[in-house]
């Protein structure tokens, strides 16, 4: 269980340098790549933090140092008050990790068995195992595929199972590395709702890396942007949106082609396609809502279909990088 008070993650001057071998035959010196560069990071108990950055910015390296897989080149780190290297095994009992790209389930066994093996690994009592598995199976709606071998699960089913596997031992800190990558809209939605409920009920601290702005928006109250191993932004999502002016886009399909909708309050006309049959309006989610914009549009034209385009996280990150350099 998490500490009710105190910091769950404390990192100071955290640095990781990778040295590569020079190519054979060349007289070059060893290459040096600074993946994480003097990172100071504090996460309080119960917080939900989105850790975002471009590929290769140092997100996964940071997480590996937090959970004791990698040794920092310099700097100190404490995770749930423990030293990740010296106290790795104690740490493993109190942290759950989901790596989107690597599975902790047994591919050739029915999902149910993966849960009972993990329960044994974490030393859960038989009663506790039953109760916790039932709880997670219910909340993540896994009942219908509990008897299916893991290799036959769909990506959405497997990710739900991975999250359940990471939470089986009730860790106080849940680290998610790209949890929604490749998931369809419904699966993403379901996973996010579950994580919100998990936080509410158990006070679980969340740290997640993602490329999906929707994840950050619906799950995290705090955003960290990392660039070349350095912290480029630390604050609220609203603050991030203000900094870079991240806007969502409402894509409207109208019943008949019409003039450009340039006079909708709170929204800006981006462009029209097919003689105005499809129109794109941008709005700032901090100032207005999609519903308000839609209501205003409905007074001017008949809408038959619509979709909302989230700001691309890569764009947001690029803006931050531009602003901080």
């Amino acid at each position, binding site marked *: 269980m998490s500490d009710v008070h105190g910091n769950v993650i404390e990192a100071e001057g955290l640095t990781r340098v990778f040295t590569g071998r020079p190519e054979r035959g060349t007289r070059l010196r060893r290459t040096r790549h600074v993946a994480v560069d003097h990172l100071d990071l504090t996460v309080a108990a119960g917080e939900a933090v989105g850790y975002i950055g471009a590929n290769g910015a140092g997100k996964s390296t940071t997480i590996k140092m937090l959970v*004791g*897989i990698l040794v920092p080149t310099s700097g100190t780190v404490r995770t749930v008050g423990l030293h990740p290297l010296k106290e790795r095994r104690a740490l493993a009992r109190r942290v759950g990790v989901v790596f989107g*790209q*690597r599975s902790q389930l*047994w591919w050739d066994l029915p999902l149910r068995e993966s849960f*009972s093996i993990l329960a*044994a*690994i974490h030393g859960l009592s038989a009663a506790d195992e039953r109760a916790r598995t039932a709880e997670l199976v219910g909340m993540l709606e896994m009942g219908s595929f509990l008897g299916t071998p893991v290799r036959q699960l769909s990506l959405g089913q497997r990710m739900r199972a991975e999250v359940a596997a990471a939470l089986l031992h009730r860790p106080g800190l849940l680290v998610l590395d790209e949890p929604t990558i490749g998931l369809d809209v419904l699966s993403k939605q379901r996973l996010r709702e579950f994580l919100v409920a998990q936080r509410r009920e158990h006070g679980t601290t969340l740290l997640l890396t993602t490329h999906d702005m929707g994840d950050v928006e619906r799950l995290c109250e705090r955003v960290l942007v990392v660039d070349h191993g350095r912290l480029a932004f630390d604050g609220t999502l609203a603050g991030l949106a203000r900094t870079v002016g991240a806007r969502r886009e409402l894509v409207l399909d109208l019943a008949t082609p019409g003039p450009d909708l340039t006079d909708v309050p709170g929204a800006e006309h981006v462009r029209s396609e097919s003689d105005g049959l499809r129109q794109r309006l941008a709005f700032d989610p901090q100032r207005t809502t999609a519903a308000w914009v839609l209501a205003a549009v409905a007074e001017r034209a008949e809408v038959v279909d619509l979709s909302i385009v989230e700001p691309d996280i890569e764009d947001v990150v690029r803006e931050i990088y531009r602003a901080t350099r």
Partner: protein
Amino acid sequence: MADRLRAYRTVLVSRARSQASYRTSFRLDLVGALLVGVIELAEIWVLYSATDEIGGLALAQVLLVFGVADLAFSLADLVAGHCDKLPVYVRAGTLDVFFLRPQPILAQLVTSDLSLRRIGRCLVGATALAVGLALNDVAWGLGAVGLLVLAVLSGFVIFTAQFVTAAGLQFFLVNGAEMTNAFVYGGRYAATQPATVWPRALLVVFGTIFPVAFAAYLPVSTLLGAPGAVGLPAWLGWCAPVAALWAVVVAAACWRWGLRHYRGAGG
């Protein structure tokens, strides 16, 4: 303690069950492993069809060396043979997942699988051992039984340590499986032969650094009072546990060194 073992037991039982669930494939694997063992045994028989004695040992005596070495190796292979899959585990990220669990990494690696088909190999080794014992004139007594049990156990520990040593070195040698296999399987092969025929370089490698000579040849020589071990005292066969301990020390050092390298702690 029982609770700590539960984690390993649960994994192993599930591994065994999943292998048994593909019955035809499992039977074929079992027979395949058995055939490989039989062919290796036939190799020795072919050698002895040309000569009566190799390195001071007759066919019946070598059969005993082969039996002890092969049984010990097959048991080690059953328990730890999948350690050579470490590079696969590294690539697939399975090793990183081991770090997220509250058990030692090596214990998780060793108990991550159990290749039941290798039981086929154990049967060959055990049969050779039984036939060897029947054919030879063994002075039966408490000492002889003790020496035999000690030899098989020490051999098992030595070969298991070899697998772990090889796994530790795999962290450095990205495509080094060929290299480490040369020692692991070469060591197994060497152990089934009388050490007196080895060239000096092999004697140094497999007599001291990777002490497979102690797995079968030396204890069996002591057991039979064979003249093979020229210049070596007869009690050397009793030193098998010392050799096993040494192999474990080397394995532990290599594994720690490799793991430190993987985590990027230098070394």
